[in-house]
């Protein structure tokens, strides 16, 4: 039977005839469904073990006629343990569902009549970066897994791909054994079965590329930034990184004003890109002093990069477009792929850029994203797979700092000033509400806090207002109130979702009091290191998030990419 590559509904793929020929011959498989060849399928797999409802649909689709085969796709044998655990969990669920639905006719799925075969199970494994499916033999037609390389696990860290193959093989054998054991119990040897492949892909899979050099561009609000990042399996290296902050210009206005922002972005992005790609010295002396580490040939030819990552949203539309236009122009000129990145995802990626965090990077990770425009609790289940579990209903925490600061006469940005004054202040001096602190949801609200500070300030006499003690005490009280809410919500989210690590990212994460309090409150949970120097908006984090997207095989068409000011995680 010939199986041609053909797309069917729900992201099912049929692999090429040659690739499966050998498997088919041995297993007498006639209709082979290959689930999740790409991104869509991966979501499909996720749903198998994350969402009960979708799971039921999926299982119904698979039906009692379907045998489950697991395919593992690895690079360097990474994350073997985790992937196998996921596969087994998925199989367990599927098996239970299949048992429940045993011979239950599904209105969606009418199984084809195919020539019979016995209780067989086939496994196909991908080589690292290879596009073709390579059948593994003599597996899995006997029950004892062939441990060709028993020491494979101890060499898991070796970048040698042969060892990785051995490692994968080892994992596959265990996984397959498990599959057979699971299916053994309830299949009827006389019945006809279809085989479904579930792809369990290592999330760090990078098609055909071991090292990726990404150019990141960020212009979502008041910072223009360009970075070049080398991403590989084990490490990330920031080759070039510059932020041309517009804060001095904005201080005159007491906030970010879009036209001013966009105008300055245009001026600065060209200078920064010149510097990043050609290493030219700029009229700005602070740029001129810094050289670029490697990559520049004679200071004339452009730095070679593999892809461009640019912030697509959320942010100010006028500002975002400046970065996007720069990115797509470069994509057109160089022919390199361009990928649009969610600014919020970029903030999460800032924690990934800290070398010490790479060892602690175990999913799920709970992120507290706190900045001038955002306050969200995000659960990251895998790269590019997020769930926002709580967010602000009105003001962001950074906005709360800035607005209350403005009320009591501090200048923009008020956050760092409040933190500085608060050091000498008494945090219990003023009674400031902690909005929604006892609310069972993980949502935040800071508008009540702002009005409370306003009322407090308006009731004070001018003499009292001018006292230094009033200012430091008020700052300390405001800070304590905001930090209290952030810590309380994070702690209750940790209790509910039991993440393996917690990270605070975004501009407000630079607040020392917040870090201190969070460390004390989360004694038993790993708190990822703060991304020093990368907590505010920057292009390095955008490049990192872009690399995640590229690893997933995503990219945009430079002709079509546009700003999405209302983008969400």
């Amino acid at each position, binding site marked *: 039977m010939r199986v041609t590559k053909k797309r069917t509904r729900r992201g099912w793929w049929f692999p090429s005839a040659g690739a499966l020929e050998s498997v088919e011959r041995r297993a007498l498989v006639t209709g082979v469904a290959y689930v999740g060849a790409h991104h869509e399928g991966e979501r499909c797999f996720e749903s198998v073990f994350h969402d009960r409802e979708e799971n039921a649909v999926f299982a119904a689709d698979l039906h009692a006629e379907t045998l489950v085969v697991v395919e593992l796709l690895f690079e360097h044998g990474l994350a073997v343990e985790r992937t196998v655990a996921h596969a087994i969990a998925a199989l367990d669920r599927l098996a239970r569902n299949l048992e429940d639905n045993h011979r239950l006719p599904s209105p969606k799925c009418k199984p084809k009549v195919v020539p019979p075969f016995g209780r067989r199970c086939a496994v196909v494994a991908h080589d690292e970066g290879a596009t073709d499916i390579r059948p593994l033999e003599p597996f899995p037609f006997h029950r004892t897994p062939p441990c060709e390389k028993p020491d494979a696990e101890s060499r898991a860290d070796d970048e040698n791909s042969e060892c990785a193959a051995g490692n994968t093989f080892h994992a596959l054998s265990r996984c397959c054994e498990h599959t057979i054991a699971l299916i053994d119990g309830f299949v009827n040897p006389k019945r006809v079965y279809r085989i479904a492949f579930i792809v369990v892909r290592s999330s760090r899979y990078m098609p055909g590329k071991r090292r990726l050099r990404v150019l990141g561009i960020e212009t979502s609000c008041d910072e223009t930034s360009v970075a070049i990042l080398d991403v590989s399996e084990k490490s990330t290296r920031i080759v070039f990184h510059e932020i041309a902050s517009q804060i001095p210009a904005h201080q005159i206005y007491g906030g970010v*004003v879009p036209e001013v922002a966009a105008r300055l972005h245009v001026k600065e992005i060209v200078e920064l890109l010149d510097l990043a790609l050609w290493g030219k010295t700029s009229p700005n002396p602070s740029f001129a002093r810094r050289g670029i580490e490697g990559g520049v040939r004679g200071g004339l030819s452009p730095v070679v990069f593999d892809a461009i990552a640019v912030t697509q949203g959320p942010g100010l539309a006028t500002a975002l477009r400046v970065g996007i236009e720069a990115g797509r122009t470069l994509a057109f000129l160089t022919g390199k792929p361009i990928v649009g990145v969610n600014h919020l995802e970029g903030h999460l990626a800032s924690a990934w850029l800290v070398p010490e965090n790479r060892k602690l990077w175990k999913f799920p990770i709970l992120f507290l994203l706190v900045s001038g425009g955002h306050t969200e609790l995000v659960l990251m289940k895998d790269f590019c797979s997020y769930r926002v579990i709580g967010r602000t209903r009105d003001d962001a925490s950074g906005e709360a700092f800035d607005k209350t600061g403005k009320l009591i006469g501090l200048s923009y940005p008020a956050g760092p000033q409040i933190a500085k004054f608060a050091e000498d202040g008494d945090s219990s001096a003023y009674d400031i509400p902690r909005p929604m602190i006892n609310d069972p949801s993980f949502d935040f609200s800071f508008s009540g806090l702002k009005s409370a500070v306003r009322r407090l300030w308006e009731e004070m006499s001018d003499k009292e207002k001018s006292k230094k003690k009033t200012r430091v005490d008020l700052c300390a009280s405001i800070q304590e109130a905001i930090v209290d809410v952030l810590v309380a919500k994070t702690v209750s989210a940790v209790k509910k979702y039991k993440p393996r690590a917690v990270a605070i990212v975004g501009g407000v994460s630079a607040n020392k009091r917040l870090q201190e309090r969070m460390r004390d409150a989360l004694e038993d949970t790993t708190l990822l290191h703060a991304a020093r120097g990368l907590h505010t908006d920057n292009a390095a984090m955008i490049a990192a998030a872009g690399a995640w997207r590229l690893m997933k095989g995503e990219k945009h068409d430079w002709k079509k990419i546009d700003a999405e000011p209302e983008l969400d995680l």
Partner: protein
Amino acid sequence: MRIVTLKHGKDCKRFRVPTEKDWGELVEYVAEQIKPGDILALSGELGAGKTTFVQSLARELGVKKNTPSPTFALMRSYAVRHPSIKRLIHVDAYRIENERDFVALDLDEEIADGISAVVIEWPENIKKWLGRQASVLDLSITGF
């Protein structure tokens, strides 16, 4: 108890809003009256409940998304379900100190599309711009 005064040309209506959560009657009235191209100018002190009102209005118009404060983004737009309006634009002029900067939002163009209605918080900051607009509904919230 909050008192909301809604002025549209010569019409003047008053609504009582007993609690912060209960904007029902007012929101229903506004949702019924609003037409494409209308600008709802929302004035009131900090903490009067302007954002809460917009949130209720958005819910009434069928917005499922979270509608947070647009202070940072200055402008957010939501797709709505309504016979004539397809988009609700939520603008916060709190940070606009110079009216010339407001022009950069290109709001005139956004309104001209014939399917959008605009809600503006802190209209005091953009009086000149509002004066040039054809259809403005003044909504002021007083009391706590």
